[in-house]
């Protein structure tokens, strides 16, 4: 079920196992049959840790989604609420508990499992509603870092960026540090910590402090990770704003990947049967899981979309040839062998069919004129062309009332690539946006300014060209088919964040001191002492393992770029990626927008 987690350099199955163990222990505390009431948001992340079968083994007989009203009938001893510590969820729970029929026998016991942690405020809230006493067990389940793939961990905390950079609420950093402590407990102390940015500094401080305060945490596990690199998202505000051009990145940009699942329009996936054409088209979106457990997906996910077609066609030929084999199977033995391979071939074929369909869906978008125009403007900005005046395309898009998020992405991109906009340009965009989309968006614009995504150029100096040149962020000769540089993931633009990781590994940050000073926040290095005997003696030719932690979110294209570096023959470093949330420009900007609809309560 989770074989893909052990495919990488670091076996992340252990982390998943730890999570499962904790879950079992909690379930066993509540003796007897049980029903779980789920905060719906949690089912996705939990699905990456456990299947229903595990719960069933521990006497979970029913599962419901949390909603107001009376709890469904279920003949169980225990009702357990799995919830995030949020007050509006406490209100629903209160309602559920109040409506419970007291006369029923046998009585059902209530419990709460807070994910990722208990909250004093929520409990206080329940107490004021007079229901706190109804709960026998109130526990927390610290689901800090969830393994998504063999080399990828995420906290799936959507508002982490907003909280850190807009509200100065560092709770998510605390969780990040805790997650890192768990990792170190399982995979050994990480001897070297590098970081860039305010938040990175905080996390490193917390880790060091936690280690000092729990001397017991000094473990005797041989360290798996050599280096930890902590990166603030606001060190590189540019990358998420650009449209990702890898296969996985485009799937995320267009359809949105959530907890490794994507929902696609069903038409292309309709099983067509002879003689039945057209009718019974499914109307529900087709849901697919995307991870490296699928061989073909693992091969194409990180490629530039332009290189995907040729792989698919090559695969098609191989599979066709394999099926042709049946004509050559003459003896019973040969036929038997062919049949034994059939399941594998069928899986390969259906995987190929799915990805051919997805590629077609994406191609319809990427060949549209608007996608092209949008990309042209993005690339002009990133390569430093005309970033200091009002852009015609953006104006046109506003006039045609394209989605506000698209407009904001472009304007912010221009601002970042120009180290802030001139007063006149900024005012012009602001006015156009407010007049077309509504004055209340002044609050969103304000948030973007606070986060540094949109700003006024001060001092009249634009340092982006220097940063671009020194870090070689724009590559003119990009090879999408057989890339030789990370810039292939954006067809020309090399993600700044990943460049920093690359330069850290070789030749080291000392070579780019000047540029590091231009980027926000401190950069630093810390060492954690290892007991003698655990110090690594590197075999010749053995790669180092670096954990890159993106505080505030990471895009699939950045992940692809890091995987590309891992696979470079003479790279010398393999990367594991962790983040507060997997993001793209759209979800990111959305998280910063002022919620304009009144709350549902």
């Amino acid at each position, binding site marked *: 079920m989770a074989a893909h987690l052990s495919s990488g350099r670091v076996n992340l199955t252990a982390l998943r196992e730890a999570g499962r163990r904790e879950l079992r222990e909690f379930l066993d505390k509540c003796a007897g049959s049980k029903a779980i009431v789920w905060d719906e948001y949690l089912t996705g992340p939990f*699905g990456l840790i456990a299947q229903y079968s595990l719960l069933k083994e521990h006497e979970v007989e029913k599962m419901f989604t949390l909603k107001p009203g009376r709890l469904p009938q279920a003949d169980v001893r225990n009702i357990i609420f799995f919830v995030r*510590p949020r007050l509006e969820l406490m209100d629903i729970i209160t309602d559920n508990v109040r409506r419970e029929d007291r006369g029923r026998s046998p009585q059902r016991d209530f419990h709460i499992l807070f994910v990722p942690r208990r909250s004093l405020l929520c409990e206080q809230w329940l107490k004021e509603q007079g229901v706190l006493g109804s709960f026998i067990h109130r526990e927390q389940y610290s689901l800090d870092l969830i393994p998504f793939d063999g080399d990828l961990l995420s906290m799936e*905390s959507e508002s982490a960026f907003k909280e850190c950079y807009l509200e100065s609420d560092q709770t998510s950093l605390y969780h990040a540090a805790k997650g890192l402590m768990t990792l170190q407990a399982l995979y050994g102390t990480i001897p070297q910590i590098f970081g860039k940015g305010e938040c990175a500094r905080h996390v490193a401080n917390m880790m060091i402090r936690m280690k000092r305060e729990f001397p017991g945490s000094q473990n005797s596990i041989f360290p798996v990770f050599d280096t930890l690199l902590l990166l603030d998202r606001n060190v590189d505000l540019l990358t998420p704003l650009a449209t990702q051009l890898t296969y996985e990145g485009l799937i995320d940009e267009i359809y949105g990947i959530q907890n490794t699942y994507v929902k696609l329009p069903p038409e292309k996936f309709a099983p067509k049967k002879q003689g039945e054409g057209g009718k019974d088209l499914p109307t529900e979106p087709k849901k697919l899981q995307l991870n490296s457990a699928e061989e073909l997906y693992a091969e194409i996910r990180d490629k530039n979309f332009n290189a995907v077609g040729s792989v698919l066609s090559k695969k098609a030929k191989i599979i066709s040839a394999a099926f042709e084999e049946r004509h050559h199977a003459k003896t019973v033995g040969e036929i038997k062998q062919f049949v034994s391979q059939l399941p594998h071939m069928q899986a390969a074929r259906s995987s190929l069919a799915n990805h051919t369909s997805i590629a077609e869906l994406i191609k319809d978008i990427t060949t549209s004129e608007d996608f092209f125009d949008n990309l042209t403007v993005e690339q002009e900005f990133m390569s430093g062309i005309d970033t200091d005046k009002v852009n015609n395309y953006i104006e046109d898009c506003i006039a045609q009332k394209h989605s506000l998020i698209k407009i904001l992405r472009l304007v912010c991109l221009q601002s970042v690539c120009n180290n802030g906009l001139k007063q006149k340009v900024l005012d012009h965009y602001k006015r156009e946006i407010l007049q077309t989309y509504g004055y209340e968006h002044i609050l969103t614009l304000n948030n973007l300014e606070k986060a540094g995504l949109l700003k006024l150029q001060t001092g009249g100096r634009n340092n982006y060209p220097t940063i671009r040149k020194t870090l070689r962020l724009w590559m003119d000769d990009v090879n999408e088919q057989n890339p030789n540089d990370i810039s292939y993931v954006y067809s020309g633009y090399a993600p700044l964040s990943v460049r920093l990781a690359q330069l850290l590994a070789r030749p080291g940050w000392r070579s780019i001191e000047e540029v590091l000073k231009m980027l926000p926040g401190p950069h630093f290095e810390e060492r954690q002492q290892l007991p003698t005997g655990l110090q690594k003696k590197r075999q010749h030719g053995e790669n180092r393992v670096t954990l890159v932690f993106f505080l505030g979110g990471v895009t699939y294209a950045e992940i692809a770029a890091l995987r590309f570096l891992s696979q470079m023959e003479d790279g010398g470093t393999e990367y594991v990626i962790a983040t507060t949330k997997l993001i793209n420009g759209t979800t990111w900007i959305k998280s910063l927008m002022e919620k304009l609809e009144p709350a549902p309560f």
Partner: protein
Amino acid sequence: MSRARADEEEYWHSSKFRAFTFDDEDDELSQVGAQPPTRLTPPRTVLCVQTVSLPQLKESKRAVNSLRDIVDDDDDDLEKVSWSGEPVGSISWSIKETASSSSSSSLEGRDTSLQKGSSSYAALPKQVSSYSLSSLFKAFSDTGVKNYAPELRRPKAEYKDYSNDWSPRDTVRRMQRGKVCSLERFRSLQDKLVLLDEAVARHDGNVITAVLIFLKRTLRREVLFRELEVRQVALCHLIHFLKETGEQKLLLDLLRFLDRTEEVALSQYREHLNIQDVEKKREFLKGCIGLPFSAEDISHIQDHYTLLERQIIIETNDRHLEMAGQSEIFRKYPRKASILNMPLVTTLFYSCFYHYTEAEGTFSSPSNLKKTFKIPDKQYVLTALAARAKLRAWEDVDALLTTKNWLGYTKKKAPIGFHRVVEILQRNNAPVQVLQEYVRLVEDVETRLNLATKYKCHDVVIDTYRDLKDRIQLMAYKCKVERGSAEEEKINSLLNNMQIRWKN
């Protein structure tokens, strides 16, 4: 041998296996390459994106299709997924499975329970997934409960852990682990501040907020503000907390104390989002005008107020007009929604649609809006054009784009460029005669030719080739016009015209 082979074929073809096929098998892909986009200088790298390997996609598609009759999709035991893709046995799948009390094991039964399930989720707000502070307080805003100090009495379960003399550090550490602690025994200001600093040093919002609530309840306001001013992190948490719980008054007091005037203004302005009644909202916005906004923002706030004021007048009037049924425009095109709270440009469109001919003196006239809000020419023309074209009022379109100079000569002018004019008209199904007139005015020859060809404005194409003296293209175009039509005749007469000096 051949017999065996035939049997084998027979087996494959007659088996119940049916193959996956794609919906559209036609060749629509090939034409993509044939449409050269008309734009100036696309960076080279962008071009690569455009040339997505279509033939290869087609190839794999064909291969997949060619495998039909070999294997089957339906009874495939390999991937145990329900149609929605949820692996059978996954948690979200099982919720639906175990929740449907009727033990229908059929697929149909499962599907309906799926749908029921998903519609009932609507009750749950799911947009935010935060684990931390920001999300904790959503529910407070309406309830007005103000006092939620951390639990002070000890629940039974905690008895054995309880001790009276935890140091501030231990207290914070215990709170971090979710244990219940009494804060009441920290009495002196000194103790309270040590406690706060200890909490802040751990960056745990849950604990920081709990301590802040305690301080807020037990310290005088001036003291609290003064101490927080030198503790920025704690200060941020309190501001965030007050925002989320809707303690507007205390928040504004605090921001004023800190001299953060712009924030005071914005924070107060944000309140208007919670006001449903438009009259009250208008009054509220009026009050916002005097707030200390930044110089750039103040004019927008003023405009917001003026716009809503204007919309209320228009709405009252128009609702009346519409109900009376006297006005033809409202009878013919009933309003789909009220204009209240719509953006400025939408309001302008509305006004151009329903009130185009009104004099500048009336509040609902487009020219009045244009003047009041200093709407740039470009924006105005674009919006008016779209509105009039939607009504197919082609004379209005003509008038809108016509300017008179001081000698009385008229001239066509479009601040948005005539190619955009053509686009808008075309979208509103303008007849060729109308379209043609504006295609002719597109300045860039190549764009003009493209548009004219695309929208079959034959006259423009012919005239343009004539002006370009391009005999070959003109001859080529002959086969695109109808046999025996006036256009064909025109081409013939041009081609026979000995006066023209063709360039080829």
